[in-house]
């Protein structure tokens, strides 16, 4: 419940100068709860829509029939399309999107940088490279084996980014972003090189490497979901102390926040969320950048609410990207990761443009 430089919500002491104060437009906790519920409903609607959207030969009535019949009850292509293709990718999109949204919000709070995103800063690429090494060099094929590599890769890069933001990034969010872009370029380059060196082995990873939610079976999604759920729980636990860290270490300490433990917890949350999401869907960029801004617009500086909104909005974004990708380049499909980059990059440009004047550079 922190408002960094703002007056406490609801007071009319200050005249509303400029745009209405972010977070107050929803009218207190009740309004936010309603907005969150509405968002969840909208998410469900889009998720349902994603079951019907596609180029496959399946009319809506047949899809509803096979849904009512349950898995395995009905035979034929429609049942296959629904249960083996569209339902898994819908679940993947929701889980991955929520994870990336929350990871972005946590990361922006952790390194107090509004341009942070585990994708742009190289965390997802680090997890991706670790998976490429695990699958290609060591030959692990099952998700529950290589997910550990993804987590380790994500943790390593997020620690590096954190260290960078403490040293070079003081007062300059753009510098940290640039460093992250460079890290990301190197890691992605190595992944690409490995994939080209051994095409046979990496054929299965080809789609995954540009970030796709397609082609996961339900068991894998379940395992990834567990990892991501853990991440969301950790994130929720540390949301409050993390928000208090924004006041500065000493003030936070005097409020009873254990500073180092909080930072460590946030790093673990990012590891679980970004690593788990990348292991499931490959390195997807920009979701963690865009979504927290939208969430802050709705929830203000309240990190807990912001996380909830980020999760919903992230899931929605990846779902929409996936649905759009099905129609963009018939007869093929564009992976969701490309669509999020396409939507997210202009947002980054606008955010960078809106950055403070006289940015040291």
């Amino acid at each position: 419940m922190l408002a960094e430089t703002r007056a406490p919500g609801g007071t009319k002491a200050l005249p509303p100068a400029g745009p209405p104060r972010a977070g107050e437009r929803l009218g207190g906790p009740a309004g936010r709860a309603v907005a969150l519920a509405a968002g969840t409903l909208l998410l469900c609607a889009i998720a349902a829509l994603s079951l019907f959207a596609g180029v496959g030969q399946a009319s809506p009535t047949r899809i509803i029939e096979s849904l009512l019949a349950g898995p395995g009850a009905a035979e034929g292509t429609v049942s296959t399309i629904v249960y083996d293709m569209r339902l898994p990718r819908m679940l993947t999109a929701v889980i991955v999107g929520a994870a990336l949204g929350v990871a972005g919000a946590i990361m922006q709070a952790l390194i107090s940088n509004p341009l942070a995103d585990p994708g742009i800063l190289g965390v997802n690429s680090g997890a991706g490279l670790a998976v490429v090494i695990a699958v290609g060099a060591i030959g692990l094929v099952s998700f529950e084996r290589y997910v550990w590599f993804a987590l380790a890769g994500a943790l390593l890069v997020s620690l590096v980014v954190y260290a960078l933001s403490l040293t070079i990034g003081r007062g300059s969010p753009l510098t940290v972003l640039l460093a992250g872009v460079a890290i990301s370029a190197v890691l992605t380059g190595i992944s690409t090189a490995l994939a080209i060196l051994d095409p046979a082995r990496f054929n299965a990873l080809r789609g995954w490497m540009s970030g796709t939610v397609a082609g996961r079976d339900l068991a894998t999604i379940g395992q990834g979901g567990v990892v991501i759920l853990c991440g969301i729980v950790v994130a929720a636990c540390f949301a409050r102390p993390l928000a208090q860290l924004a006041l500065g270490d000493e003030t936070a300490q005097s409020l009873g926040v254990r500073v180092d433990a909080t930072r460590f917890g946030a790093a673990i949350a990012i590891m679980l969320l970004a690593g788990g999401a990348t292991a499931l869907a490959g390195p997807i960029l920009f979701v963690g950048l865009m979504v927290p801004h939208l969430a802050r617009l709705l929830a203000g500086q309240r990190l807990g609410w912001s996380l909830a909104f980020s999760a919903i909005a992230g899931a929605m974004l990846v779902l929409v990207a996936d649905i759009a990708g099905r129609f963009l380049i018939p007869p093929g499909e564009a992976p969701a990761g490309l669509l999020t980059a396409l939507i997210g990059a202009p947002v980054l440009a606008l955010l960078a443009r809106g950055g403070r004047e006289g940015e040291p550079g």
Partner: protein
Amino acid sequence: MRRQAHGGASLVSREARGSASSDFDVDFGTWRRPVRTRLVSGVLNTRIGMLVGFAIVAGTAAFLSGIALGKYAVPFEEVIAILRGADLGFANTVVLEWRLPRAVAGLVFGAALGVSGGIFQSLTRNPLGSPDVIGLGAGAFTGALLAVLWSDQQTAITILALAGGLAAAAAVYLLAYRRGLSGMRFVVVGIAVSSALTAVNSILLLRMSTSVATTASIWGQGTLLDVRWPEIVPAALCIGVLLILVIPLAPALHQLELGDGTAASTGVRVERARLGLLLIGVLLMAVVTSIAGPIAFVALVAPQLARLLAGSGGATLAGSAATGALLLSVSDTASAHLFPVSLPVGVVTAVAGGAYLLALILREASRR
């Protein structure tokens, strides 16, 4: 107007000439030597000369080993004999038809990328304002890919690549401009434009890959693998003309580095010079990209390496061309032979250049 071999010290040079009798000796620094002939006078930075010389030697070594190495190894003596016109049967085909175009492309395209990078880093007065970082390479490649959808004429591809590069430059400029261009904001906006265009490129490549499968995706990484004479000859001619055109503009580029006002006061027609340089820079990038795909970071690294090695104040276009040619031929030879499978050179330059970019950012940040 007096021509200067290298304009970095032009003000000093004019002052010296104005006040000095013929035997007045000004110390321009350890590596600088005043050159006075009847036609041209100026201060020659001998380190740039040495750098160019070194690049020629090392570049020739990379060039020759690029030709000699491979599954069908041709000894150096035979390579030289063939290049001098001997006929050794199959080895001739290997050397002249397969490997020579690639080696030539490495040198020529590298020089083009280096000069393009030098121009842009000077124009933006920002070491990161290089055409491959701020999305011009990606934009040129978008244009090239769009052209491939309709036609396979190399001219059409190059023209659309040019249009794409210019459009990307305009987009970056418009998005980043807010009461002036601040350094970092400009670069981050450029990176954003670059990521968006890269995503577009990947989508276009996916769309196309039903017909041309793997070649297109390798092209998307930036490669010299499939470069043959019919492509390289017009491209090399084009690059040669552009490199000649840039020579008379080089002094203006150095003045522009000092700021528009200062440049104008030293007699540079600011807008005209900038437009000409911008066009040449984008064209160089477009020609290379339309054939080799987006080769990352050579344009970023080459001018700075040149500056470092030459110890010059600003970017030197001759040095940038030399280091660019050297970097690309060495990377291409390395990418072709260091690994079990021949990699696209763009992957190698992306990894090496990305590491360099990181080091550059760390250094710039710690200097503040």
